[in-house]
Every structure is written in C-alpha cells, then in structure tokens.
C-alpha cells in the first residue's frame, strides 16, 4: 500500500485535487476567453470547468511513473487500486458539490463535477490506445477542441461540446456520465486482464519451434 501510494505520487495528486477543488470554489467564476471558429468573438469559459484537468494530469503522471513490468508482475490488483483513486475523487467531489450546491455556495460546482468525471472517463478510454503517458492529453484536447468548434453564432454550445457547456446543462452531464461509465468499463477490462495474467501460469513453450523473441530464446555467447 505504501509503495503503491508512493509510486503513484498520491500525496501530490491529493494536494492537487484539494487545491483545484478549493480554487474551483474561490476563483472558479473567473472567465477565460478562448478562441472559437465561430468568429472572432472569444468564448468565455470559466475556470471551474478547466480546473479538474489539474488533478487528472497529475493522476496519470502517477500511473505513468510506475506502470510497466513492476505493475504487470505485482501481486496486488494495481489497476483496481488506480481505479479506486479516480472513484474516490469523483465521490469526494460529488459529496462536496452536493453540500455546497444545496447550501447555495457554489453555483459552478455541478460544472466542475461534470468535467471531472467526463475528463477522467475520457482519459481512461484513450489510455489503452495511447498508453498512460499520453492519456491526460485527451481531456486537455477535448476542452480546446470544444472551445474551438463547439460554439455557434450567438454563443450557442453544440450538443457534443460538453466540457464548455453551461454548468447546469443536463445533456452535457449525461454525456460526461456516459464517458465515465465507458472509461470505467475499459478500466475494469484492464483489471480483469491483469488478474488473469497473475492467476494463470504462462503458456508452455511449444516443442520443436524456436521462440521468435530473442530475449527468451537460448542466448549465444558469441553474439555477446
């Protein structure tokens, strides 16, 4: 547990998450004017919608730091633990947003929560394709592409541009939820794969056929 916590840089991730949550409450309403293909008018996007990217980038940095041989041969279910970090972040945010929204303190809270779960889901979905190293680029790109192409004339936000939609837009929230569910499914497949790899013995090498892998085959000393 300690090793896992350290290799994943979870102290840094936790601090980043808390800081971004607090910043989302304090300065989340600050406007960032982003360019748009709709014209020269800049699309005003509030910081609360961008701040979830900070812990997500750090989370994937932590995963990337240590994934590889060590994880593949670990006794404990690393993928399940990594998934639990994301789940904890989502639940903590949902609880915070629930309380602050009910009290009327944080209007943009639902937007922060939506972008957190949507971006986490998106990163999980692309991770098997890009590797954990570049998974966090997908949500960053999603925000930029949404700002660039996701608005029409008159500030209309297109249906697919969920990261820049109004903080209380229902459709955008459903889309983010969908991404989270998909991302969760992709990650759970990963959990299943590592468990099978761990529990099953490796397939025996076939008789009379040389291995294609130079590393596993008999080593010739002359070559060295």
């Amino acid at each position, binding site marked *: 547990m300690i090793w896992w916590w350290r290799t994943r840089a979870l102290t840094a991730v936790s601090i980043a998450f808390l800081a971004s949550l607090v910043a989302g409450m304090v300065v989340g309403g600050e*406007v*960032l004017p982003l360019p748009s293909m709709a014209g020269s008018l800049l699309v*005003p996007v509030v910081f609360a919608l*961008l701040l979830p990217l900070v812990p997500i980038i750090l989370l994937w940095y932590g995963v990337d730091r240590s994934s590889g041989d060590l994880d593949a041969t670990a006794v404990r279910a690393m993928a399940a633990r990594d998934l639990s970090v994301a789940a904890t972040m989502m639940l903590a945010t949902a609880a915070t947003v629930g309380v602050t929204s009910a009290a009327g303190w944080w209007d943009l809270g639902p937007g922060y929560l939506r972008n957190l779960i949507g971006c986490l889901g998106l990163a999980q979905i692309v991770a098997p394709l890009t590797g954990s190293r570049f998974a966090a*680029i997908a949500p960053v790109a999603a925000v930029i592409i949404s700002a660039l192409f996701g608005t029409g004339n008159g500030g209309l936000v297109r249906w697919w541009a969920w990261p820049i939609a109004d903080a209380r837009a229902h459709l955008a929230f459903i889309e983010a939820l969908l991404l989270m569910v998909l991302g969760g499914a992709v990650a759970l497949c990963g959990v299943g794969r590592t468990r099978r790899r761990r529990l099953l013995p490796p397939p025996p090498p076939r008789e009379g056929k040389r291995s294609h892998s130079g590393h596993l085959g008999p080593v010739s000393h002359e070559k060295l």
Partner: protein
Amino acid sequence: MRTLYSWRTRAETYATVPMLALVLLQGAAVVDTATPGYRTAATAKADLMLFIVVPLCAACAAWEGARHRIGRIDTLTIARRSWQVALIAVAPTLVMGLLGIAAAVAATAPAAAGAPGLPDPWLIAVYLLVLAGHTIVGYGLGRWLSPALALPISLAGSYVWLAYPAAIEPFWIRHLNGLSFEGCCAIDQSPSPRALLATALFAVALGAGVLIALAGTRRMRAGGAATLAVLLVVAATVALPLGPSAGAPRTGAVRCDGSRPVLCLWPEQEGSRSLIHAALTSAYARLVDVGMPLPAVVTTKDAETPDAIFVVLAARPQRRGVVLSLVASAVPDTVPDCATRGEWPGANNRGALMVWMALAAGVPTSDLGDVAPPEFIDLASRVRQLTNEQQLAWYHANLAPLKDCSVQPQLDPSAFQDGAG
C-alpha cells in the same frame, strides 16, 4: 536530410497539416472582422491564430524535450553546448510554427486586398518571438518534467497564458502575452511600439531564461532564473503605461490635396479620393448655404488643429458614410462634467442635431432609416422646413444644452417659426 531521430517519430510530421487546416479555417472565420483595406490591421488580426500555432508548437517541443530526457542527454558528454542542442532539437518545430504564422498572415490578408504596402514586419517579428519563446519553454518542460506532465502542461499552459490576460486587469498584463494586437488597428492607428517591445521582451525572457538554465549546472540555472526575472520586470515596466488597446496613433503623413475642402487622406484611402472629395464638396456647399461654419481642411489623421476637422473614414467608404462621418465629427461629442453629477437635459440632443445636419448636408431621409430612430428623422424633417436662419437658430439653441446641464433643450421647431415666441 539526415537527423538523429527519424522524421516518422517527430510530432511535427503529424501536427503540421491539422495545424494549417485549423489556422486557415480560423482565418476565414475572422477575416471579415479586421479593418478592411489596411494591411497592418489584417496582419494584426492574424494574431488570433497564435492561439492555435503556439500551443501546438510548445507541445511538439515538449515531445522533443521528453525524448532527450528519456535519452538521458544530461548524463552524456556532448560536444555541442546545451543551448545549441536545444535549438537544433526545436528547429523543425520552429519551422512548423513559421508555416503556421505564414498561413495566418495569408489567411487574413484578403481583408486588405488591393491595399498598398506590405504586412507589418514588426508585428510578424513579435509573433515569431512569441512562438520561439513558448517553443523553448515547451522543450525545457520536456527536459525537466516527466512526459506525462510536460505534454499536457505545455499545451494547456501555453493556451491559458495566451487567453487569460485578455480577461484581467490591470491592462498592462494584456500586452505581455502577444495576443493584444488582435483588436488593433483602425486606419489611423498602428500597433503601439511599447506593446510590441513589451511582448518581445517577455518572449525573449522566457526563451533566454530557459536556454540558459538548460545548461544544467547550478550556476547556469540561477543565471537562467535571474535573466528571466530581470527581463520580466523590464517587460512589465515597458507595458505599465499602456491601456487596454494595443493601438497607437499612426505615424507618417497623410497626403493633402484639393480645395473646398482640402482633403488629407492615408495612402489606403487614395483610391477613393475622388469619391470622398465629391461627397464632401457637395455636403460642404449645402451646409455653408444653411450657414454652418466648417473648417477648410478635412483630415483622417487625428491631430489637434483648430483649422481642420478630423473624420473617421474607412479605406473605401460609401458616399453616405463620408457625409455621416463628417456630420458625426462636426457636431461636438462631449459629455459635460455636470452630467456625471446630476441630470443632463441635453443628453439626447446630439442625435437630433446629427440627423438634422445629415439632412442639411443632402443625405435623403430614406438613407437614414437604419442609423437614426424615426422620431429624430421626423423631427429633423420638420426643422428642415424652416428658413435657413431659423434652422441655424434651432441648431445653436440645441447645441448649448450639450455642454451645459442648466440649459433646457428646445427641440420643437414650431418655437422657431415666424411669429412664434
């Protein structure tokens, strides 16, 4: 060309075409918003496309920096100096950025089709410096941070730094990131040298600071940080007196020609000189008939001279636009101090006076429908039925409340008719 890494594994190979497509799309979307017929304004509008080019270049450079980091370039004894290594690594990225900026300038050039002169070289130089600054910072991040951090941070960081200052005050911060020229320039403006210098210094601060610090020794890191800090302070000091606009009064002379009135125009407006002069001559003659005093010189360069009237004109104006600009300049546009303290009865007078003067200058009533409210047109039409002396009396009676809150407007023309009052 033989390179250390194959072109297949360079990010630029894949990023260039999408970047150019985005730049051309964005350019087509914003080209109509630049001041038409003015090369400097068209080049300034290309500024908006830095949003696309610069963050992409920063991310590509971070990728290259990450490869050097993974290659443990720090631990090798390398013949070249560290800044040379960095510059060689990011050279293809800078070429990609150069292409992007060239595409941006080309995409907004149609706004100034047919205008004299060339795109503003100072603006383009500043764009290139901003590009280089962000690219080198991206490379530095790639060298110093894990790729999982360096790539998203360089992409998002560059993007946010280009976007955010436009939304905050004090205004001088807006002139550091290089995005402030986008709204520049009307035809009598050019980019403020101060804004250009501040942006350039900031970009150089970023680039030089990182290049020095890349040497890796403790002394060089401190040197890089000190260079960065000093240049940032200098850049901020240069930008400090600036307001929200990056435009400054245009230097250079207007060419004056003609008589009644003498007409002074910028080179971009020369093509329309005969149209502008004909419109002004006709308006002048009609206004002088009514008895309106007008200066002998009409100029498009804003100068504080009493014997000239400054008019705002497009490069290729319509006849109606010329007369309306003259009218807008001839009726004083001042807000008296008393208006900030209490009621200003003459607040609406200027609109009525302008409509009257436009009609007096020969603009048909039907041409005013989209620029003036119907009640003003109706009122001014009734004033026009008075004699010239009565119209002038009405004008002066309603001019006074523009400057003095204690004078009541007398907009009803019946008070000026013979036998009235």
